């Protein structure tokens, strides 16, 4: 047999049957080794998985003998496993059942199809007898669930699967009702969920029994939280067994009714008496019969009486979870959601904050109030969860109720002070803004920004505010981080001025304590989403404050060092948020603030660049998410700086040296933007602009010669333009001379600010200058032409002569230059498309406006 040959490598098919046999021989618990440690089982399973020993998959090139050998090896395996299953030692039996479950998952399809009913019977026999030990039962329930999971993927086994599943239901319900071990309940409920997901029809007949069983467990409150969640999930899946609109609605109605009844007791004295009855009336319209109580009539008497006194909160929370799951898990047909009662429930819960109205004060004991207050946060949390689920589930159909939710959220923002709840609230606003778009951003913008600024406060007072406003906290911080502070001041010096301008409310913030990192992250993420969706529409009132907040947050939390990722303070209770997470979300939000449409250049562009570059270049961060994100941010910002109008390939007209939107549509805008900035040096906006032309031209050197059509027209305008430019230059501002070379030089002097620092780029510029003066001046400078062209080519509107037009323009420009001489130099740049209509720039060029076809003024006139 070829099995004896040497193996080629570890991928050789021959290896598999051999290895499988070895495993059976040596690793298997058999008569000789009865008490094997189960830890070896893990090894066994991982070997099976890694080498796919049970898959029996090979290509046709594998010879028949080998295939046979593998098949027989798997046969042996199955035989061995089954013999374990039928063993009467519970230890071995358990092992066998678990391995059978792994076999279900791993074995070939044809093998599974051929023998699944046999395997089913093997396991079924272990679910039935009451004497079986507990862990065997649990294992067989789980293995059974694996069987159905696998069965679902196979097309022709639906019917068989259904009939097998329906056999199981009654024993399962019996286990849930009668067994006394939680592990067994859990297994049974898990199996029930699996069946409900894949073969819902098989439970159809037992729907009411199943409901009763689940609800009685749920209400009894005798299980752990995890188990209760599973039960709630199972309850939510139950309507699937009938699969129609009515049963879904009925279930929802029953659950809501039960919750409201519970709440009536719990909130007694904390809310208006009418609240409860109104909630019930919304659920059951007057004149209609209320639905049967959840879990059927038998439960009503004993369970409810007992339960309401004991554990109402956990039960209510879990029923709320059930509602959430119903709203978000798949369902075969469309359903009618009682949206108003759901929202009313949320409203009812979150409006109770533990305060007692004066009227009911005499009837309230301190203990009762204490009890309610202790349970309320959890209840609020789940109500917010429910609200999130409503938003997710109903999506666009929420529109008629969106305004109500907005008001609810705004109201709750004011009252909510616990970090956990605020985190939830931020994530809720996030999903609202994302799912309902710009319209929602308009509504919620201010609210989110106000709250987020408060939650992010310590960053605010730690960042340059100390100088202008005495702040005891910052002072104490300053002692601690004196080494940091020095650097910080040199770095954030400009903030002190901006601080006054923006009028950040430090006073109000300084007494608050520092918010936990998780809350900060939630707040920053909410801002990020807000900027992404609605940063450009009616955001003037909050935008400057947010931009400032984000740059200071990013600078601040990145200052404390980078090496926290991975080594963060990890507590034993699962993953915790670290500073690295905050850094990442702060940088993400910063990127959003740079990219979100605004008028004019983002005020902190240079600082943000510096930050991103520092992180992505830092050696320590190599491989971290932070570095990866910063690299992405730099790539994204590149487009902001070198905008690309995306022409179609082979577009017939001379669109190769097409400019970015701004220049092209509204040429004069370039001037106004540029002049503002030019008060202290050469007119770098022009250079900036020019740079871009060359940049584009450089890319197109090959094609440039093909673009002759408009070449001729542009030479003359260019000359006049430069001539005028130098005239304008002589009248005050330092503008460069008419020579093209100096244009380029001026551009170079400024490029550090404009372009990402990169040696390569400078080189390309260098090359460029040569091209400029030699052969390529046409197309390259031609792009400049757009300035006069706007006036020249417009035959319908009679502009005087080109020269007049241009001189006017230049004069206008110098005026602007004079007017804005004091403006901050950071204001330079690529103003957005819409700056055309900016009033100030319009005012300064009355003549041009008349001649310009793009402006609306002309249309009116």
């Amino acid at each position, binding site marked *: 047999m070829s099995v004896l040959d040497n193996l080629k490598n570890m991928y050789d098919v021959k290896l598999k049957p051999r290895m499988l046999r070895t495993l059976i021989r040596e690793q298997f618990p058999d008569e000789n080794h009865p008490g094997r440690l189960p830890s070896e089982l893990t090894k066994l399973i991982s070997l099976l998985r890694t080498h796919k020993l049970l898959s029996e998959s090979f290509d046709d090139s594998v010879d028949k003998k080998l295939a046979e050998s593998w098949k027989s090896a798997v046969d042996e395996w199955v035989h061995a496993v089954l013999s374990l299953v039928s063993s009467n030692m519970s230890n071995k039996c358990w092992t066998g059942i678990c391995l059978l479950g792994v076999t279900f998952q791993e074995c070939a399809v044809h093998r599974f199809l051929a023998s699944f009913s046999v395997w089913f019977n093997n396991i079924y026999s272990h679910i039935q007898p009451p004497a079986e030990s507990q862990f065997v039962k649990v294992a067989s329930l789980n293995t059974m669930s694996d069987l159905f999971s696998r069965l679902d*993927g196979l097309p022709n086994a639906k019917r068989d699967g259904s009939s097998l599943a329906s056999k199981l239901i009654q024993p399962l319900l019996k286990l849930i009702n009668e067994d006394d071990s939680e592990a067994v309940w859990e297994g049974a409920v898990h199996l029930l969920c699996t069946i409900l997901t894949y073969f819902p029809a098989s439970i159809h007949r037992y729907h009411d029994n199943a409901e009763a069983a689940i609800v009685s467990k749920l209400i009894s409150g005798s299980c752990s939280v995890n188990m209760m969640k599973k039960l709630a999930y199972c309850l939510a899946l139950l309507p699937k067994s009938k699969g129609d609109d009515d049963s879904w609605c009925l279930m929802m109605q029953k659950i809501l009714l039960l919750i409201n009844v519970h709440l009536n007791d719990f909130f007694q004295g904390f809310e208006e008496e009418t609240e409860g009855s109104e909630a019930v009336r*919304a659920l059951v319209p007057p004149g209609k019969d209320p639905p049967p109580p959840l879990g059927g009539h038998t439960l009503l008497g004993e369970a409810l009486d007992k339960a309401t006194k004991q554990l109402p909160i956990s039960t209510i929370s879990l029923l709320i979870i059930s509602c959430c799951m119903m709203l978000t898990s798949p369902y075969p047909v469309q359903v009618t959601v009682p949206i108003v009662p759901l929202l009313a429930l949320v409203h009812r819960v979150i409006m109770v904050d533990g305060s007692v109205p004066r009227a009911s004060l005499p009837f309230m004991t301190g203990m009762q109030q204490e009890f309610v207050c202790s349970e309320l946060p959890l209840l609020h949390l789940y109500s917010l969860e429910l609200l999130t689920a409503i938003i997710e589930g109903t999506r666009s159909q929420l529109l*008629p109720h969106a305004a109500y939710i907005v008001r609810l959220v705004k109201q709750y923002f004011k009252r909510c002070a616990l970090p956990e709840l605020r985190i939830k609230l931020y994530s809720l606003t996030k999903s609202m803004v994302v799912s309902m778009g710009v319209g929602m951003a308009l509504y919620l913008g201010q609210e989110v920004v106000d709250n987020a600024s408060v939650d992010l406060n310590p960053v605010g007072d730690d960042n340059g505010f100390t100088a202008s406003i005495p702040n005891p906290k910052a002072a104490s911080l300053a002692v601690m981080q004196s080494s940091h502070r020095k650097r910080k001041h040199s770095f954030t010096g400009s903030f002190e001025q901006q601080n006054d301008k923006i009028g950040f409310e430090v006073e109000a913030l300084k007494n608050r304590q520092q918010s936990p990192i998780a809350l900060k992250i939630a707040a920053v993420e909410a801002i990020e989403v807000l900027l992404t969706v609605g940063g450009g529409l009616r955001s003037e009132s909050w935008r400057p404050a947010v931009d400032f907040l984000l740059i200071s947050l990013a600078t601040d939390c990145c200052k404390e060092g980078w090496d926290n990722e991975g080594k963060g303070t990890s507590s034993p209770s699962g993953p915790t948020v670290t500073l690295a997470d905050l850094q990442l979300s702060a940088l993400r939000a910063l990127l959003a603030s740079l990219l979100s449409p605004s008028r004019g250049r983002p005020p902190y562009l240079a600082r943000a660049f510096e930050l991103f570059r520092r992180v992505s270049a830092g050696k320590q961060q190599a491989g971290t998410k932070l570095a990866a994100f910063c690299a992405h941010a730099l790539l994204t910002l590149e487009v902001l700086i070198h905008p690309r109008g995306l022409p179609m390939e082979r577009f017939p007209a001379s669109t190769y040296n097409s400019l970015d939107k701004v220049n092209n549509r509204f040429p004069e805008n370039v001037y106004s933007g540029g002049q503002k900035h030019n008060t202290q040096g050469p007119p770098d906006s022009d250079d900036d602009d020019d740079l871009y032309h060359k940049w584009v031209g450089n890319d197109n050197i090959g094609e440039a010669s093909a673009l002759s059509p408009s070449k001729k027209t542009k030479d003359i305008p260019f000359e006049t333009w430069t001539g005028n430019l130098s005239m304008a230059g002589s009248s005050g501002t330092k503008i460069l001379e008419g020579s093209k070379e100096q244009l380029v030089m001026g551009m170079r002097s400024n490029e550090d600010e404009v372009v990402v620092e990169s040696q390569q780029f400078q080189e390309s510029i260098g090359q460029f200058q040569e091209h400029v003066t030699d052969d390529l001046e046409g197309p390259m400078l031609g792009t400049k032409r757009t300035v006069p062209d706007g006036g020249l080519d417009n035959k319908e509107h009679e502009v005087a002569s080109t020269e007049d037009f241009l001189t006017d323009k230049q004069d206008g420009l110098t005026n602007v230059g004079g007017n804005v001489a004091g403006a901050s130099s950071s204001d330079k740049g690529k103003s957005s498309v819409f700056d055309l209509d900016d009033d100030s720039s319009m005012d300064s060029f009355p003549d041009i406006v008349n001649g310009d076809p793009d402006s609306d003024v002309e249309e009116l006139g």
Partner: protein
Amino acid sequence: MELVIASSSIADAGIGCWDLQSGAEQLRYKSCASPSHGLACVGDRFLASSQLREPSSSSGSVLYWSWSKPQVEVKSFPAEHIKPIAANSEGTYIVGGGQSGDIYLWEVMSGRLLKKWHAHYRAVTCLVFSEDESLLISGSEDGCVRVWSLLMIFDDYESQQATHLYLHSFTEHTLRVTDVVTGCGGCNAIIVSASEDRTCKVWSLSTGRLLRSIVFPSVIDAVVLDPAEHVFYAGSRDGNIYVAALNAESSSSSSYGMHIISSLSHRSRAVTCLAYSTEGDLLLSGSEDGMVRVWDPKTHNIVRMFKHAKGPVNNILVVRRPHYLSLGTFSNSNASSRRHGFLLPPPLDKYVNLTDEGLNNKTVIRLPTARNIPQDALYCSSRIIDEHIEDFQRQGSSAAAEMEVERLKHECGRSMQIVQQWKKMYDNLHEFCINELLDGDQVGCTK
């Protein structure tokens, strides 16, 4: 796989449906005389079209066709003539523009008229949703283009406070607005509107200002944007499709006018509607001569033609073929669409129903049907093994053992104490008994 759907103002032409790739005609839906902008595909589930009506008739008409049947399946009769209709991409709402300038908003699943508001002074001519579908843009015969925030429309409180409901109102057009389109970019998108005053105007959604106005040689009836918004295409009544610059450099040498780069022309009659196929990067135009032409926008060549009818084509839609429709034929998809629960919804209501509280409390939603749980996560046998092993090891761990020892020691100490107590009690009892006995003896002796 995209389908081209075209309708005409002539009733016997019906709605034509072709496969864009193969050119094969699919099903022809009967008896539809749609006005311009009066055809919509509602959430991939069915087609809806408003109908041209006799001026004398008092109500409007909106018809539904399911994909699989040529006959009209659902007829609704709104309170007035509805011309433009639009549906959001999910197919949950249909908006219709009335002759009086009112806009109607219906919930599709229930047919309820959720909202009706007075939007324009004269008839609404076109309606379009913004990219994220939270805004609605309407054009009217009075030359006005308005942007509505749907959230605001539904917010009774805020809308009473506000002086006007709209977000922006663009009034620069002097004549009837013929078409409105909006681009991508969320709140920073542009809106392009065409009007009978021979201009197309480009507006900024974020600032609400006019960015550009382009004068065309003839009236533009249809506009469509290039996906990269480099240019836009304007279908004119002189039969040309003009290419007008957005981001593109506007050529000075153009013979058509400022900002008009070039034109696609086929000496046909007036172009009435345009559509863009994103899948094939193709431009589709409908003409008064009843043809649908498919252009390659790069080469300006016609790549395909569909003959729809003798009368004018006035609506073209390009929609994705719904996944449940089989490739070749539409006819046997009936059963499968039924299985997907896509029965057509009830007709649209005529009036806003405020009385039925039970209905207003509810909303019909479609929950996801797909399962997207990763398969591996479902299997739990090996998890059970791991848990069991962990249990096992935990019991054998030194910490557990130590705790057990401590507990046992404690137990032992307590037991010892109890033993001591018992012993003491026994001693006491013993002593007591002996004393009793001795006392009794003494008493006996004394007797």
